[in-house]
Structure formats: structure tokens, C-alpha cells
């Protein structure tokens, strides 16, 4: 599986560079575009893991909807091209980020991961549907998420409503 390895490393390197660009670029619009690239590489990694449905949904939701909303929000701010100047919080933010990164890396490296030897499912969609919607599946979290979203939407409408 040398091809998969090459694909993984290209995606991983590009993804990390794009993620760094999101944080470090001063131009907020370009930072948002780097975020799009980062989302795309994550979708690519899903494909190398045979999770085709997840990859398509990743592109549809994160690239097609969420980044577009982020870009729209950026349009409403001033000084887009130098909108992300560094300030005194730079060092504390860096320290917190390093601590978080260390914690996550430590947890990842010290977990014994179970590797399945069965070949990946083909088509994946029925299995996902069965897990999400059938009895004994994750139907309760699936139902809770829309109620949470509905509450958030009603809250947003109440907040912006003209009196």
C-alpha cells in the first residue's frame, strides 16, 4: 500500500501547512481560504481511510457551507487585509496551544489502538444508516442534535428580532 502512504503524507503535510497558515496569515481572507484547503485535505484523509461518505459530507458541509459562511462574516469586518495583527496575547496563546498539542499528542501516542483486519465496507452508507437510525444505534444523540440546533436557531431569531 505504498500509494496510500504517499497520499497520506502529502495530505498530512499540506493539511498541517494550511492549518498553520490559518493561524499565522495576517490577511483574514487568505486565512479563510487556507482553512478551506485544510478541510479539503481532511476529506482526502477520509478517502484514504475508505470513508467515502464522510469525505463527501466533509466537503459539502465544511467547504461548501461553513467556510462560505465564515467568508461572508469576514466580509462584514473592517480592514480584511491586515485584520489579524498580533498583540500582547501572542505568547500566552502560543503556550496554551503548545500545552494542548502536547496533551493530545501524549494521549494519542499512549493509546493502544485496535486495528481491524476485516476489509473496509463497500458501500458504507447502509452501515452508517443502520448505526445511526436503527434500534440499539445512536438514534438518541441523532435526535438530541436537531433539538439543540432548533433551540439555537430560535435563540438567534429572538436575539436579532426587531422590537
Amino acid at each position, binding site marked *: 500500500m505504498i500509494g496510500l502512504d504517499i497520499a497520506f503524507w502529502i495530505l498530512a503535510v499540506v493539511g498541517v501547512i494550511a492549518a498553520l497558515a490559518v493561524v499565522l496569515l495576517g490577511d483574514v481572507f487568505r486565512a479563510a481560504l487556507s482553512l478551506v484547503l485544510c478541510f479539503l485535505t481532511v476529506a482526502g484523509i477520509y478517502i484514504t481511510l475508505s470513508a*467515502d461518505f464522510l469525505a463527501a459530507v466533509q*466537503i459539502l458541509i465544511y*467547504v*461548501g*457551507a461553513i467556510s462560505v459562511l465564515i467568508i*461572508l462574516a469576514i*466580509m462584514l469586518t473592517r480592514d480584511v487585509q491586515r485584520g489579524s495583527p498580533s498583540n500582547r496575547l501572542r505568547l500566552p496563546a502560543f503556550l496554551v496551544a503548545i500545552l494542548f498539542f502536547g496533551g493530545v499528542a501524549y494521549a494519542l501516542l499512549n493509546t493502544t489502538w485496535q486495528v481491524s483486519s476485516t476489509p473496509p465496507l463497500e458501500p458504507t*452508507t447502509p452501515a452508517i444508516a443502520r448505526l445511526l437510525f436503527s434500534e440499539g444505534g445512536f438514534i438518541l444523540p441523532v435526535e438530541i442534535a436537531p433539538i439543540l440546533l432548533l433551540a439555537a436557531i430560535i435563540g438567534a431569531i429572538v436575539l436579532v428580532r426587531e422590537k
Partner: protein
Amino acid sequence: MTMAALPPDWPGGFWLHWGVFVVVIFVFVMATIMGFIWFERRAMAIMQARLGPNRAGPFGVLQPVADGIKVMLKEDIVPAKGDKVVHWLAPVVAFVPALMIFAVVPFQGGAILADLNIGILYIVAISSVTTVGVFMAGWASNNKYSLLGAMRQVASVVSYEIPVVLSIVGVVLLAGSLSMQQIVMAQDIPFILLQPLGFLLFFIGALAEINRAPFDLMEADSEIVAGFHTEYSGMKFALFYLVEYGEALAISAIVTTLFLGGWRGPLLLPWLWFLIKVILVFFVIVWIRTTVPRIRIDQLMALAWKFLFPLALINLIITAVEILVWPAGSLWVLVPINIAVMIVLVLLWSRFFKLGWGKVEV
């Protein structure tokens, strides 16, 4: 009906299949786009009682070639205060997804670059990336008209995505698969008969998503010059032009595959049927362009949220109930029922939803 289905890995070998189909798709898309440009200009000319391009070659068929050479020789102008890198990248980001859609379009049984299990979902996902390219173009041009055009594009795509996807779900329920090949195989009755309302909603929504008239107000010349590609010239403008027609071709191919039975049909060769249906759908798109006047932005939003969205939900529920309740053998009976349901619902909703009356609701 038995089809002369090609083996899945024709012409043999993974890499050979890839190479052959990438070339075939590229040539097909480019040739068909040039044909479409000529076809649209001539057809519109006939409908508007004028001549249209008739000088380059017999009946003007070489006009797109002449246009292509002209546009390649033009100077490439980049706005002085624009974001040059993003300005350069934008046409590419818009063009690549438009071309990638054709990877899962079946030209005939087995003649497909990649028969993905998630075919139609792949198309919905990939085509949403084009919006980012359009936004990049609008912003990098440093021009208020470009930005306004891009904003309008985003607003319409985000709104119309919902009815389009919901009407696709109706087809997926009937076919029982997301794969484009399986959807074609499932259409013993073309889905336009079983899903007439779904077809109508999909077609209207798709026209809005690709900015065809009457939804072309993101490049409304009288208001915002040319929309997001105002500041583009030369080859970069040509790429946006290709995206526009490539998307029209993609929509024609998707409508053919989802609703018109794809490459299936009697007597003629399968790929010929596919081509005939694609050209027919494109003709309807041109016909609509010459017939319907452009709508306002508030009407655009109202149409998506008050008309298409509720009807798409109702269509989805009716389809789901029919599939659960109806015995699988007698789908023909559903055809008149569904057509009647469509007529009743559309008439009913046009009572609720009227444009005009002198008042504007946003």
C-alpha cells in the same frame, strides 16, 4: 430491457481505464461546451428573430473556435489594488470542480470514470466548491460590482442547495442507491414520470445554482456590470465562461441521469441516447432563458424559501410514504397519481405565493 453493458473496467486495467476516461471526459466536455455555445447563440437568435453568428464556417459553427482564439490573445489585466494570488487562483478553483463532476456521469453502461457508491452525493459536494472560487474572484478583484455579484451568487447557492438536495433524495429513495450507474439501472420507468414534482424543483433549483436566466442576477449587466468576473479578461475570463457552460452541461447530464433514464432507450446506441437527452435538456435551458424575464433578488430568495423548500419537503414525505406502502411491482399506477399531486400542489402554492401586488416582502 437488456442493455449492452460494458464490463466495469473497460477498456481493461485500472490505469488504462483512468487514462482513457480522463482523456474522453476532457475531450467530451470541451467539444460539447463549444457546441453548446454555438447552439445557444444560434437557437436564441432564431427565437428572437435575428441571425446570430453565421460568418465563421458553415452556419457559423466555427464561431466558438474564433472566440477561443480571440480570448487567448487578449491581454490579461489584473486590478492594481486587487489580491493578485487569489485573483489568479479563483478561475482554477471554480473550473476544477466543474470538470470533476463528470467523473461519475455514466455515458453508457460501464462507461464511467469512477462508479462511486456515493455518486450523486459526490456531485453535490464537489459542485459546492465552485462557490468558493466565485467568492475568491469577487473579493480579489477589489471592485464593488464584483463583490456584489459574488455575494448574490453565495446567497442564491446557499438557499437553492436545500430544495435541490431534497429533490435528489426523492430519486435516491426510489433507486435505493446513491450510485449514478445504479440510479440509471433502476429506471425501468424514467423518474421524471414517478417524480414529476421532484424534477420540477430540481430543475428550477439547478438553474438558480448555475446562474442561468431567469436567475442570472449575479451578473445582471444593467445593475452590476458583469458580476464577479467584471475584472477578468483573457484566458482567466475564458475559464469562467467555460465554468458557466460546463455547469450547464453538468446539469443537463445530471437531469438526464437522474430523471430521464440516462443512457437507456430503444433502438439507438446507449451513448447516443445519452447525448440526445443532454442536448434536449440544454435546449430547454436555452428556451427558458429566452422566455422568462430576470427576477429580483428578493423574489429569488422568496422563491427558494417559500415555494421550492416547502414543496420539496412535501415531495420527499409523499415519496417516502409511497415507497413504504406501495407494492414494488405496480409502480406504473403511481405515475398519474404523482402527476396529479404535482399539479394540485403547484396550483395550491401559487395561490399562497404571489409575486407582485405592488408589495415587497423580504
